[in-house]
Every structure is written in structure tokens, then in C-alpha cells.
């Protein structure tokens, strides 16, 4: 390996068309280069059949989440130099989702479960003010902590409980569920079907507080804490 380059090891496959193989490419380690830049280098200069996903390239859209050296990262936000460390950089598709081709996974299961918790606010028809919780309020702070989610699926990929129970809703979904349930503009009746999902058999109680979701979140959010708050709220309700 000459100086100024990095070995990039890519896990490639296309179910139904090509089996799993690891391919290694030598990519330039340019100043401020990201893992996404390295993937584009491979696509443009080495192998035009490589498949990966990206859109905004600014850590806003969540399209480019992949597994780098065993941890979920956004390819566009991850500095190549930071993950290189003198050894080959290993990139793989997200876990817990079916691979379509190379680094691209089918995100339908992710968003089907998101839809299952009805991730929007059902504003109570009796509420006439657009905002009823003061910005400085503790409840508002707890909600705000989860609003930056970009639905990249990193937490869902990292979660061992999703791996153990494929029907488990998942951290991204439960974080969103906390946000809408904690909002007091929410209409109680409209929340019923969501409560069944969130506190049902494949809901919050599946979480064992392992915390991989929080560790890998590229936006620094804490889904594990949101899930704990949902459990806490349910217990307080049960014993009140």
C-alpha cells in the first residue's frame, strides 16, 4: 500500500443473481475525503457495477447509512482517515434488512413498521392553539431530543433485538412513537391503535436496553432513552 491510499473492502452481493464476495479496492486518501467519496471513486474509476445509495451528501437525508468496520455510519459524514487506521476499511450493507444489491438494502420493512406506529400527530380537535407546551418545559425538551431523526435506519440495523425478533418495531419507530405520545396536543382516542403497537407483543417490552441504537445514531439521538421513558410511563400508569 503506497502512502496516500486506503484499502476499501466492499461486501458485494445481489441475491438471485450473484453470491456474496468481498472485493478490495485501493482508493486515494485525500484531505477530508469521506467513505462516500471512496465509494464514488470505486464506481467512477474502478467498477461501474457497484451499487450504493446516497442523495444529499450532507447528513440530512439518511440514504447512505452503511456498516463501516462493523458499526453503522453515514457514508457521507464519515471521514475515511478516521476509519482507516492503517488497516483495510470494511464496508457492508445495513443489517436486519434484505440486501437488494451490494450496499443497497430494501428499506420497506423499516418504513412499514414506521407506518404501523402512525408516526404523525393526531391533533386533538379540542385544541385551538398550535402550541401548548412552553419551549422551556421539560416535556418539550424530551420531545426535542428526538426530532432530528432522519430515518436512516442505522439504529434498526444495529439493534440485536430486531435481529432476534424480526417483528420488533425497532428503535427509530419507538423514538418517533415517544415524540408523538409525549405531545399533549395528541388526541387520546386517535392514539389507541398506536398504543396497541407500541405496548404490544413486539413493542417496547422487547427492548432489553442494550443501547446499540444510541451508540450508532449518526445524529447523536438517544432512542434507548425514549424507549425507557415509554416503559416508565406505562408502568406509572399501571400502578397509579
Amino acid at each position, binding site marked *: 500500500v503506497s502512502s496516500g491510499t486506503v484499502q476499501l473492502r466492499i461486501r458485494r452481493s*445481489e441475491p438471485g*443473481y450473484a453470491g456474496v464476495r468481498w472485493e478490495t479496492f485501493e482508493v486515494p486518501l485525500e484531505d477530508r475525503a469521506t467513505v462516500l467519496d471512496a465509494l464514488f471513486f470505486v*464506481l*467512477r474509476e474502478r467498477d*461501474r*457495477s*457497484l*451499487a*450504493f445509495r446516497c442523495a444529499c451528501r450532507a447528513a440530512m437525508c439518511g440514504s447512505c447509512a452503511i456498516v463501516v468496520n462493523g458499526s453503522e455510519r453515514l457514508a457521507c459524514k464519515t471521514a475515511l482517515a478516521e476509519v482507516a487506521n492503517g488497516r483495510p476499511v470494511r464496508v457492508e450493507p445495513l443489517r436486519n434488512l434484505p440486501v*437488494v*444489491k*451490494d450496499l*443497497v438494502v430494501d428499506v420497506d420493512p423499516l418504513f412499514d413498521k414506521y407506518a404501523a406506529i402512525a408516526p404523525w400527530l393526531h391533533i386533538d380537535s379540542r385544541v385551538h392553539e398550535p402550541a401548548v407546551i412552553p419551549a422551556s418545559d421539560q416535556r418539550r425538551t424530551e420531545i426535542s431530543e428526538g426530532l432530528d431523526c432522519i430515518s436512516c435506519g442505522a439504529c434498526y440495523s444495529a439493534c440485536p433485538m430486531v435481529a432476534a425478533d424480526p417483528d420488533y418495531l425497532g428503535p427509530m419507530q419507538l423514538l418517533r412513537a415517544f415524540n408523538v405520545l409525549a405531545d399533549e396536543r395528541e388526541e387520546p382516542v386517535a392514539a389507541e391503535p398506536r398504543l396497541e403497537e407500541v405496548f404490544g407483543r413486539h413493542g417496547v417490552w422487547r427492548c432489553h436496553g442494550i443501547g446499540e441504537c444510541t451508540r450508532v445514531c449518526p445524529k447523536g439521538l438517544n432512542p434507548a432513552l425514549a424507549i425507557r421513558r415509554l416503559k416508565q410511563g406505562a408502568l406509572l400508569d399501571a400502578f397509579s
Partner: protein
Amino acid sequence: LLVAGEDAGGAHGANRLGGNGVAESTVFGAIAGETAAHDARELELADFDTALAAEIEHQALVPLAADAVRGSDPFAIRARLEALMWERVGLVRDEAGLRSALQEIDGLRREAEQLAVPSHRRLNLAWAEALDVRNLLEVAELTTRSALERRESRGAHYRADYPDADDVHWLANVHMRRDEVWTAPVRFTRLAPPGRVTAVPV
């Protein structure tokens, strides 16, 4: 045809040629969405020319069947087009630069007739790039031709050979069709520049 976002353009006047499309995505997004919902309910499907559709499909598929060794690389053409647009159709423009840019775009377009990509279709990024490159060449030519047409400087359009704004001749929008360029006066609605121009009531 319904558009929203940066494609809708215009919300910031001459100030921005693109980018920061928040107003365009919210305002025109709402208009486009409401219109699409209405049209989907009310309009009959229009007839289309099946022979033309087959030809468009054929053109889209051509790069998949092309000889990868002798064919041209969509990523390389895009990189050259981007460099060209930055150099000669970018911040400072003049007639000589714009005319030579048009010639080079034409050359790139001829190279793009020979685009070649891997033949397997699923998630084929090179194929997507090839289709994008054709559209980019189209837009590059439209941008360059309209910049050539506007012989003044206004907003983010700066012509070194016409450095001042010319309100006498150029309170106008440039319109284009293939091989056809014309101008039409700006229709002022809520605001108009000071002087003899009056706003048209909305």
C-alpha cells in the same frame, strides 16, 4: 407538466439562479400537489404516441447494449461538463466564453451518443448517470443560450461585456424552445421597480 422546488425557480427573482429552494418547494409544492390531486380525479388520460414512447424507451436502453470498451464513460462526460460550466458559464460570463462553451457542449453531446454502461439493469448507477448526463447536456445548453441572449447583468447573472443592468431593454424573461429563443416582458404583480413600470394587479 407540474414542477416544484428548484425546478420551479423564480421566487427570488434575479437574485438566485438556483439553490435554496425552500420557498419554491413549499409554495409551488402546494400548488403542484393540489393541481395533481385535482387533475388525477378530473382529467381523462391523454393519448400518447406509442411509436414515440417506443423510441424513447429504445434510446434509454441503448447505453446498456453499447460496447463498453469503445463507448464513452458517463462519469467522465459529466465531470468535463461540470468543469466547463464552472469555467465559462459560471460567475463571470462573456460572449466569447459562452459561444465556445456552446461548441464544447455540442462536442460532449456527440460523445454522449456513444455512452456505454454495464448491461445488468438492477440498481445500475452508471446507467442512471448516463440518463442524467443527457438531461444535463440539455439543461447546460439552455442555460448557456439564455445567458448569451441576456446582454446585460442582473442578479446573479454577470456579463463582463455588459456589466450593468439595463432596465430599458431587459425587464424581460428569456423563453426557449428547441432552436427558438425569444423574450417576453416581466409581468409585475405585487412589486415593480421604481420608474415607469406599473404593477399588474393580481
